[in-house]
């Protein structure tokens, strides 16, 4: 599904050029559950943002479903983002002024889905995630775990082929984190490709493959056991 070839990203600072990513080359298959790990400032989130086509300032080749993203203009990339990607943030990033229902509705309205269809999809997603009773609440009225649940629901409401999760359990305690990871596992079983960034070995084991970054370089790749994930 994803092919990266010599992806590089750098920043100009007063101390000179700073490389966030150096010649990253990797392939990710359809339906894979991949974890990206590494120390702080390794370039994990940067790589995720490039994969999600939120960051346009990079070099190299990036193919998404055989489409050459590197040749596309930012507007075209965002169109591809809408078609393929759902993003889950560490800080949840729910829209505080909207209810849970409206937060789920937002991505669908940006994809020009008709109102009647949107209503059906949102209701279905609320039901699927067991948060129907919370649909009229505002994010500030939810606990952290519930907020992340809503954030994941929002990420999948438009049925993306690819979910990018940047430290989705970073602000949750272990029980909540485990629930979230089980959910990801379930989504992956249903066919969604998932790429997550995490510091936790325990949560990394939920994925099939671990890619380790260090100082912007691809340090190593490991395969994991699919049944791992229990403490």
């Amino acid at each position, binding site marked *: 599904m994803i092919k990266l070839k010599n992806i590089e990203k750098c920043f100009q600072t007063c101390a000179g050029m700073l490389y966030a990513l150096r010649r990253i080359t990797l392939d990710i298959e359809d339906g894979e559950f991949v974890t990206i790990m590494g120390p702080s400032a390794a370039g994990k989130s940067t790589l995720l*943002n490039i994969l*999600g086509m*939120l*960051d346009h300032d990079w070099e190299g080749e990036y193919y998404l479903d055989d489409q050459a993203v590197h040749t596309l203009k930012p507007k075209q990339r*965002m169109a591809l*983002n*809408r078609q393929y990607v759902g*993003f889950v*943030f*560490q*800080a949840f*990033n729910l*829209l*505080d*002024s909207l209810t849970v229902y409206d937060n789920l509705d*937002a*991505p669908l*309205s*940006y*994809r020009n889905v008709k109102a009647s269809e949107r209503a059906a999809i949102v209701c279905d997603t609320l039901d699927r995630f067991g948060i129907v009773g919370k649909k009229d609440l505002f994010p500030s009225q939810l606990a952290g775990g519930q907020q992340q649940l809503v954030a994941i629901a*929002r990420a999948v409401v*438009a049925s993306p082929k690819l979910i990018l999760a940047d430290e989705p359990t970073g602000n949750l305690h272990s029980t909540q984190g485990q629930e979230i990871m089980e959910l990801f596992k379930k989504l992956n079983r249903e066919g969604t490709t998932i790429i997550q960034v995490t510091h936790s070995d325990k949560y990394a084991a939920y994925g099939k493959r671990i890619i380790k970054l260090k100082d912007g370089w691809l340090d190593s790749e490991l395969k994991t056991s699919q049944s791992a994930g229990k403490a």
Partner: protein
Amino acid sequence: MGTILQDIRYGLRMLVKSPGFTIVAVLTLALGIGANTAIFSVVNTVLLRPLPFYDPDQLVRLSTVYDDGGTGPASYPDFEDWHHQSQSFEYLAAYTFQSNDFITGGEPERLQGACVSQSFFPLLGVNACIGRTFLEGEDQPGADKVVVLSYRIWKRHFGENPNILGRTVRLDDVGYTVVGVLPYDFERPLLKGTDFWIPPSERHPRYRYSYEVIGRLKHGVTQAQATEEMKTIATRIAQDYPESHSNFVGVKLESLSSYIVGDTHLYLLVLQGAIAFVLLIACANVANLVLARATTREKEIAVRQALGASTFRVARQMLTESLLLALVGGVTGVLVAFCAIDILKTHVFWIVPRADEIDIDLWVLGFAFLASVVTGLFFGMVPVVRLHRSMPYVSLMERWTMSGTKSKLSNTLVVLEFSAALVLLIGAGLMIRTFHKLVTVNTGFNSANLLTFKVSLPPSRYANESQCLVFCQQTLTRLTDLRGVKGAAMNVTMPFGGLYSTSNMTVSGRPESEQPNLDASIHSVTPGYFRTLGIPLRGGRTFNEQDIARRSRFVIINEKLAQVCWPNENPLGQRLKIGREAPGGSRVDYEVIGVVGSTLQSELTQELEPSIYFAYSVPFFDRNLGFVVRAEADPEGLVADVRNIIRELDPSLAILQIGTMQQSIADSISRQRFSLMFFCLFAVLAMILVIVGIYGVVSYVVSQRTHEIGIRVALGARQQNILSMILKRGLTLSLAGSAIGLVGAVGLTRFLSSCLYGVSPMDPVTFAIVPLLITGVAMLACYVPARRAAKVDPMEALRYE
């Protein structure tokens, strides 16, 4: 006290620490307070300040009251009877303005003077700085001809020569002995602009009503009591002189101050109200700025409260800062007002009485101070109200977002200023429509390329009719012979020339009960007048030279008179009589030989009135001649030639009021032009403040919602989604402001009725276009920050390390 000083010190420090905010707020306030102070200086001078005479409350104006309810000036004999018979007045005086040629050896100069009774100066409490004013008996027929000069004339013509007393000056070739000079600061209502004062040397008939009468009530006598007494006196006079006073029913008294102010008080109050809206908008703008600034200081406030500061202490600090800001704005505003006053005076001079007295006195400074304090409290309360409602501990949490209260307050302020601006803009729109109606009014004649001027023939050299006629004909012949002149004519009471004469008229052979009972304007014209002015001939013929030579009793009437007097008949050949029966005389018939189109006489807003035209010198001749010349091109190019012609005919004649007819017409609507200018200025100021306000609020919202916008883009929002989200906010504010503004305009524009012409205060065109216009401009103001929002890089927005 110590803590208050602490608050002041801290407040000043905070203002200095944020120079950008302080400068913008001070300038905004200076604009609003300065403009209000400048207009208040006019209101203060014209409406509030007492007349600059001693005991001004005792001064009244007297006018004759007619049985139809109308009022008018008195005749000198009537004034003398009032003076002798009344017990209510300490002084009664009469005056009438006139102009004469002042001859001192050089080029004659036409001066504005006044013919006044002996009691005039004592009534006003005015003394000469050199010599004296008039003595008892000097205003009686046969007395020596004496004159009191203004300081201005004494300085200009005599170089402040102290030996001026006893010198003889010539007014229209008649010698007058100078007995006094008024002080240099004698520029007061009624007599400013007057260069000389003479007592009446002859008595006009009792039926010549040309004198204004003023009185000083005795202490203890009320206006009502004096009115009652004068009514008795007027009734007695009417019984004694039934031929000329049959329709006199009394004497009206009004305070001299009210008379001088006239109908300008409502007009000035409308202006003051309009500029108050600008201050309101400025306040709302500054309130929003203060609110935004308070938001950034919430953590500081939360810490203060956590350290033990009460809400009152924190609120007092914020109010102190706001008042300091307002006072600095007020001081700057007064400086703005000082600069604006001179400009204001030149524009209102012809429209508002006592305009030359306008200045900034202690009352005006007090107004500026009060306005500063009120505005400071107004916008200072806004963050205090929010402080009262906020949960300070929330701002101490790491992840804190702007609460809805700030948004609501901010939105309310924007809606408030939008609605105020809309009211002003609708006012300006109504003024524009009025002005457009005025400038397109059909005057009834062709005013293009017309040059007009006047001369006043002195009786000493033009004693009889034939001398006046010869001068008039010679002037017209020479004017017509000029290159570039298509025609020339004369009318004693030229349209828009400032002179206006009316007379009662009756239809000959009709019983009293069927008479039209109207006054018609009277004109004395030369042949060729109608052709020169482009007044169409509807029937019959115009005058010719034979009519003048034979003194034929012919008249030409206008369509309006024909409609009123002979609605179903041909007016040609009909006969009419002019004026009231003079004592011992009988009126003669005049035959109607022509009907011409109706014209406006003095104001574009007046209705067409009945007019009667006589051939010049029939039945009377007038020494005040109004000439009109139709030029082939620019009439101003003929001015020098006209001066040469008059100088050649009579070197000692002064030319008066030479200018184009179009300028005279434009001068007649100077008040409307002034209103338009000021309303448009206020409206533009208001619009600028509102645009800045909306731009500021929307920009602030965008900056606060950058994170949210980044999330939306990451979720798939397109640029147009973000653009429309931001623009929708601006549109909502604009529509809410428009709705409230329209309601306000419906209630307030009726106060503009007296300033409007041909336009209803609820003119649907204006009410439809203005909201669309201001909403459109507001949307443009929102577009810039909206565009910025649409270009938010989600990467920047979501960066959380």
